[in-house]
């Protein structure tokens, strides 16, 4: 875990409930907008891991995620004066991070994608075999689970960004629909429908990947 420098000031609310934290965020934002670097540091300290995790899951590249997280907070610092306070600080930073990631992805769009072909028997029909909850210490089973996780990650990565993002937010980060709607600036109904389509797509992609791996093995 990264080191966490403590800053003085009204940061004690960081460990309180969400509302208290939100209020505390507002104070810090206000101070940060006036040029108080310490206040912004505290905000960053609160959210940098979440932002980094989100960005890492979006780009699947730790080094790149570091760069993009840094870029996100630099942009947040620059734009802090323009922060209206209509959304929570994390929501605001998330949107910045999303834009940063999308910009980066557009930049590397021309790069050819490499299609990996792994070989593991796994299909949508057999999706019950994603038994990652199994905590037994059977090495063979662990290896299988790991492989299936790899397939899942691979399938996730091959989704279009909208689908990948909504699955990340809902199924991995377990965020409620309302928060997802706020983060993505879409209605809750759209969250539902997009999530449904994204999951279908993920399943079919997973089936395709496992089919390819099966074929390769045989």
């Amino acid at each position, binding site marked *: *875990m*990264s*080191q*966490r*420098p403590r800053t003085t000031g009204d940061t004690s609310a960081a460990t309180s409930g969400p509302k208290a934290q939100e209020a505390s965020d507002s104070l810090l934002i206000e101070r940060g907008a006036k*040029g108080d*670097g310490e206040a*912004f*540091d505290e905000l*960053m*300290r609160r959210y*940098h*891991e979440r932002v*980094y*995790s989100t960005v*890492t*899951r979006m780009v699947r590249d*730790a080094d790149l995620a*570091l*760069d*993009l*997280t*840094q*870029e996100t*907070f*630099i942009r947040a*610092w*620059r734009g802090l004066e323009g922060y209206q306070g209509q959304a929570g600080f994390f929501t605001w930073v998330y949107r910045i991070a999303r834009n940063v990631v999308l910009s980066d992805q557009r930049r590397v769009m021309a790069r050819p994608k490499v299609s990996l072909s792994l070989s593991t028997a796994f299909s*949508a*029909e057999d*999706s*019950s075999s*994603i*038994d*990652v*909850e199994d905590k037994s210490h059977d090495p063979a089973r662990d290896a299988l689970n790991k492989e*299936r*996780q790899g397939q*899942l*990650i691979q399938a*996730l990565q091959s989704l279009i960004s909208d689908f990948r993002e909504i*699955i990340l937010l*809902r*199924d*991995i980060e*377990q965020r409620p*629909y309302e928060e997802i709607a706020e983060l993505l600036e879409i209605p809750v109904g759209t969250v*539902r*429908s997009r*999530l*449904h389509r994204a*999951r279908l797509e*993920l*399943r079919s992609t*997973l089936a395709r990947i496992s089919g390819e791996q099966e074929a390769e093995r045989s």
Partner: protein
Amino acid sequence: MTRSKCREHKEQLGTYVDGMLSDGECLRLESHLESCEDCRNECANLRTLIAGLAALPPVAIPKELWPRLESALREERNSSQSSTLPLTLWQRLGRVRVAAGILALTFGAFVLAREHLSNGGDVQGVAAENLVQHHVADKSEAEEKTDSSLEGRTSVSSRAVMTSVRDAAHSRLGKKAAPQAKSARGALSGGKGDRSNGRLEVDAKPVRIPVDEHDEERLDSRLLETERGREKKARAFLGKLTPSLPIATLKLDELAQFELSDGRLEGWVEALEERAGRRYEKVFSTRLIRSISVPNGEAGRGHDAPADGGVSGALAGAPTAPGTPLPEARPGSQNFDRLKRRSRNKGAAKAGTPGAKVSKSPKEMGAKSKPRAKKGAVHLVRPESRRQRPRVLFATGGKKAGAQIEALAKQLKAMSCERRPIRSLRSSGLKGKSKSTAVRGEFLEVVLAEARVEEFLASLRQNTGLGLRVIATAPEPKSSLRDSVDPVSRPPAKSAKSAKDFAQSSKVTLHFILPY
């Protein structure tokens, strides 16, 4: 159960698994699931998939994340602090002095204008007054930019104002004045203008604001950032104009920036022309960069010396006389918004309205510039009206052109044309990575009679083997130089009209960039 009913329920499965269905919907779906095995399997598969996703290992937070963020933010703050430094007493005084100086200049110009008018209606004074009024209208911007004052004496010229502005901006940034500003100050101290090299008479001296060492450090980093921004913008602009040319060298010192509205730009140029006693060519402009260049060989002015310009002047149409400002609209400014609106109004540009005359976008120009420039291309930008001078911009191909470029360089050098080295620049990569490129090159300038341009280019083509191409962007297709001079694809087929045009014009400046 019908298939459509199943589909409807399957669409709800995700929401059901997430526990987000309403009670009524939930009951309906559950009753359906009891009776439909297919949907039950689907639901089970979905649960498994979601469970698998939820069980994916969490992202490991690297140890260097926080220190890196912290240091990046610290750097960012340090670099931006220069723009938000609290004003020192001297700086506060400086602002007052700016206002006072501008008022004095305005008054002086007004008195002069009245005198001139009463003595026979000399328009120069009026122009100067207009100029000052334009400037005064921008004085709040100027104050922000300079935090300095201008000590006006009796008269003022655009050059004086602009040089002062730029010089003071340099002072504010804690950087020594650019060479151009120095030379301009030389002209200032001379009192009388030196029209042979584009300098104007000035009677105002810029006042520099001293900054302490600590400030200077921070301000230097700010300046660096500003220069990078300029470079990026200029590169983007040049990239649009000359898409296939390796133009990567700019003399940033010459990219003096200034904000003027469209209307003011016209008035400003006119005032400048009147004051300078010569014509300034408005070569082209873009949404972001507006440019004015000083043509060579001004007819009737006895001014055939090469313009004292640089690469940016040559290519971006930036001021070729040192210190002549490059008006610019920055995003977020009123001017920018206005220009943005204007750029949408292409009809106005096509109609040749006064505003459109200087708001031709590179895209529009590029549309007429078919075929696109290849390596070793000549860009010939026609004047937008007959009274203006034509101008030729020339750039060689990239390093890969190798021997051909060398031959070209050799021939050019043999012509004893004026040569100036281009200072190398570094462009920093994104996100603080150390990816950087340095480009070096040499800038050469050749002044030719316009009628000899084609002959000269033909000679170059023959001796170097480069497929040189002249691209014209004349607003009048019939007299377009592209039609008359397209050496690569077909022999020149000059119409009588265009030949006459050629003959009537006097000098053309060819700018060469030789990368090395």
